[in-house]
């Protein structure tokens, strides 16, 4: 049994934490939170590029480090701990993964080296309005290589260079690459629950679009991309959830009420124990996802669903009960608790809500157990 990260991967994780402790304290996160016109921390982004993290899982022939997805998982966990205000997930978990999964040789050779070198910020645009999107409600369309439609919200849509867009062509759903800096694209910033991450409304009016992957396979391909992203996102969520538990513990150990530290009351001890249990369940599910992602196992869709459901629950619970443990001070803008609370919402929604993943999981289990 070897169900853990290797010493090298743990070393990479420790180095990532050191880098982010130095370069991404919460004061830096607040630099984005408190500046409405600042979409991300560009200096931190440059630093992350220099670390080579964007190319961790990109093969060397395409300018990456060619390490693997386990390495990307440990980096993701540290970025989640740090609530890093950068477009890493959009660029790496979604766009780079999509290109590696479904891109042709020319697309890989064009896009992956730019991602690895930090020359290109990515995004993925699927949602068009309230509620989960399905084949019958999808409106954006492509005709003659031009995309038209509206996508909202698009995480990092304001700052991305290249966007993967879900759209129909001759009634068939597909995924299309669109240069957001080119013609036919209008962007408007959108206010979200998590201002430390950028979001936009994208209006496409005959924007040049290039298909990624086979035609008609848009939703199937999107599910595969979401599965891969979900596992990486689950590591960010585990990192954030663990940090919330640490914050709650530290505060409970220094805050006195009724003559003793509040960490000595069972109401608080049991709350923190509940957090610990959820965090461990999430971590174990995330590890299984990491294994499935790294080996491209047939279990990947089920493992991704489980990882996403457990991690979404753990981060939500830890972030809300962290505020509760802090009491009144936890409800202030000045305390960092809400950074994690906000990010937990962003991470739970960006690849589809947990409710949708639960339905997917049960459908998968039904199919698996019918066979």
């Amino acid at each position: 049994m070897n169900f853990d990260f290797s010493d090298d991967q743990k070393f990479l994780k420790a180095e990532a934490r050191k880098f982010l402790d130095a370069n991404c304290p919460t004061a830096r996160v607040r630099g984005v939170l408190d500046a409405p016109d600042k979409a991300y921390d560009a200096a931190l982004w440059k630093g992350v590029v220099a670390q080579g993290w964007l190319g961790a899982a990109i093969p060397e022939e395409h300018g990456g480090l060619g390490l693997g997805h386990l390495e990307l998982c440990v980096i993701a966990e540290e970025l989640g701990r740090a609530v890093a205000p950068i477009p890493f997930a959009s660029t790496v978990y979604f766009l780079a993964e999509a290109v590696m999964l479904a891109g042709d040789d020319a697309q890989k050779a064009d896009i992956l080296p730019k991602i690895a070198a930090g020359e290109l910020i990515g995004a993925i645009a699927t949602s068009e309005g309230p509620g989960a999107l399905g084949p019958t409600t999808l409106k954006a369309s492509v005709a003659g290589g031009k995309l038209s439609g509206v996508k909202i919200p698009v995480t990092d849509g304001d700052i991305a260079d290249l966007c993967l867009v879900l759209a129909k062509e001759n009634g068939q759903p597909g995924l299309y690459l669109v240069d957001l800096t080119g013609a036919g694209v209008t962007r408007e910033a959108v206010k979200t629950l998590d201002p430390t991450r950028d979001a936009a409304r994208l209006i496409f009016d005959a924007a040049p679009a290039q298909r990624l992957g086979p035609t008609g396979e848009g939703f199937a391909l999107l599910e595969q991309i979401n599965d891969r992203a979900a596992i990486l996102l689950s590591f960010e969520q585990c990192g954030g959830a663990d940090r919330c538990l640490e914050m709650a513990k530290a505060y409970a150990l220094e805050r006195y009420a009724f003559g003793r530290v509040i960490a000595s009351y069972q109401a608080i001890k049991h709350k923190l124990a509940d957090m610990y249990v959820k965090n461990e369940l999430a971590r174990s599910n995330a590890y299984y996802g990491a294994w499935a992602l790294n080996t491209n196992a047939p279990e990947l869709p089920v493992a991704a669903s489980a990882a996403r459901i457990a991690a979404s629950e753990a981060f939500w619970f830890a972030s809300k009960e962290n505020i509760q443990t802090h009491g009144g001070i936890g409800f202030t803008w000045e305390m960092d608790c809400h950074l994690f609370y906000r990010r937990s919402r962003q991470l739970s929604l960006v690849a589809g809500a947990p409710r949708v993943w639960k339905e997917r999981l049960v459908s998968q289990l039904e199919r698996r157990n019918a066979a």
Partner: protein
Amino acid sequence: MDFNDTPDEAAYRAQAKTWLDANAPKKAVSDANEGEGGEGGGSMAASKAWQAKKAAAGYAQITWPKEWGGQGGNPIQQVIFNEEEARHPIPPNPFQIGLGMCVPTVATFADQATKDRFVGPALRGEEIWCQLFSEPSGGSDVAAARTKAVRAADGSGDWIISGQKVWTTGAQFSDFGIVVCRTNADAPKHKGLTMFWLDMHDPGVEVKPIHQMSGGSGFNEVFFTDVRVKDSQRIGAIDDGWKVSLVTLMNERLAVGGASGAGWREFMEAARSIPGADGGPVLKDSALREKLADWYVQAEGLKHTRNRTMTALSRGQTPGPESSIGKIVSALMMQDLGNSAVEMLDQYGIIDDPALAPLQAAFHSSVMFAPGLRIAGGTDEILKNIIAERVLGLPGDIRVDKDVAFKDMPTGR
């Protein structure tokens, strides 16, 4: 990251497999009762025979040193053997409390002659041990034990034990027990306890089965009336029994396993075959599907947490604290899953008759047994305290009884 054995582990697994294929029983004994630790009755002869076979081949306690009849093996080898053994229709194992907790306690503190006397027979399943700790007045609070041991008046140095223990697994078929007794009521509760081993066949020992709310009887009350024991049966120093009992209790969480029985698979199968109001399977119900997803995720979380623990063992490391979450998650899940399964039958769910409702027998049994599992071997609340204190490093509870003489402690009912 993978799920493969190391070459050494694979070799050990192959060796264990070969031995088990040649030696394990081919047919199950059929009267396994409710309750952990295994039952007596007709399966006892089979249990003892299987234990003797394992002992002769060195598989009874793989991690014990060779001079005790073990293999001096690693914990991972024991795990591998257990996995392979579970593939065979083996009889219940009523020896684990003795071998996992009682005998190691005796062996840690006793002289060589006592060790020689007890280790072998226990290992071979010839003698069964029970652990006599919980009392009516103290379940979670084991140190509040009231069972008394006083020196005999005849100057022999013997001790006379009187009192009552409760929730003793396997007492009805045990030959020996370790018992924690009050020897000094003037000292604070932790400082007036002494541990002894005793003969469960002594005429002063009376074992009465407890009729559980679930209908079964897996545990016992044990009454002591003037049971005389030699001073040489004392384990550890006088009034030092709390320290001795910690050695025993350290192993208890490993011994009380997680919940088994009907899980998400059985729930899904049942939901497939039960009609909803529209005639289609109730599995189409979205609220029920969400719950099913949650249970799958919890069950997978526990499975892979065990894999992480095994990985630590495989690497020769001490497992991390994550191994402490098993029972707290699985016992509550057993209760809620069982209840949801019963509720999905609607009015019919109340029927507890296998002839009318064969499908829900497993779920009814979960509903009725789970309350006990949430209490046994550390209640949910005590386990949360343990996680908070030992894993997270939060302060212990305020002990108002810490410096009070035991005899002056408020006792309530």
